[in-house]
């Protein structure tokens, strides 16, 4: 499955990129599994996703839980807890 990934704030700084397109293997079913899979892509990803429990995610621009399934997603974003306002 091909999906667009977006990274914000310190997740972006650690991965070293704001966005990328990746081909995700069929074995990756959920947001949490996607984070685990990303950790294996290199030291910068291992570092960015080391504290996966504090990272939030959105699928197609809607907040989701780690257990949310990513099947059919066009865009998945990873970021720290928001601090606007």
């Amino acid at each position, binding site marked *: 499955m091909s999906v667009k990934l977006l990274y*914000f*704030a310190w997740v972006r700084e650690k991965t070293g990129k704001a966005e990328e397109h990746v081909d995700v293997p069929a074995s990756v079913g959920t947001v949490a599994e996607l984070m685990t899979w990303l950790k294996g892509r290199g030291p910068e990803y291992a570092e960015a996703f080391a504290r996966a429990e504090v990272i939030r995610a959105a699928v197609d621009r809607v907040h989701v839980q780690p257990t949310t399934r990513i099947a059919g997603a066009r865009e998945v974003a990873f*970021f*720290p807890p*928001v601090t606007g*306002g």
Partner: protein
Amino acid sequence: MTVRVQAEDFDIGAEVRGLTAGRTDVGAVVTFTGTVRADASANRITSMTLEHYPGMTEAELARVEGEAQRRWPLLASLIVHRVGRLAPGDNIVLVVTASAHREAAFAAAEFLMDYLKTRAPFWKKESRADGSQTWVETRDSDEDAARRWQPPSR
């Protein structure tokens, strides 16, 4: 029912006039303005840089605003959020709510701010006098504030 993300400053008076001019059904207008605070530390904050998730921000703010419209009899509402580099004292965010009576205008403005703080995809980075930069962390009290609007969990 308007949401804007912009680098430019805003004028509270002009925004309220734009929302209520010519209307005679509005009896109460509440505005909330969030501004960049310096802090008391010797290593003072020199600037604050805001980034956001274009596309999701507008969608999320519109969802939050729609939820406020469903909960209270609002006659008008507006959310303006700045992005980019800001200095201490600068405006960050403006929320305006208009209703026939003050109870709805106050409650909706508080709700919008609480939800915006915990749901809108903005991130703040502080720059300090010594050159260090730090991503701002979430205040627990913001999560608590947002939670009070939810139905009790079963």
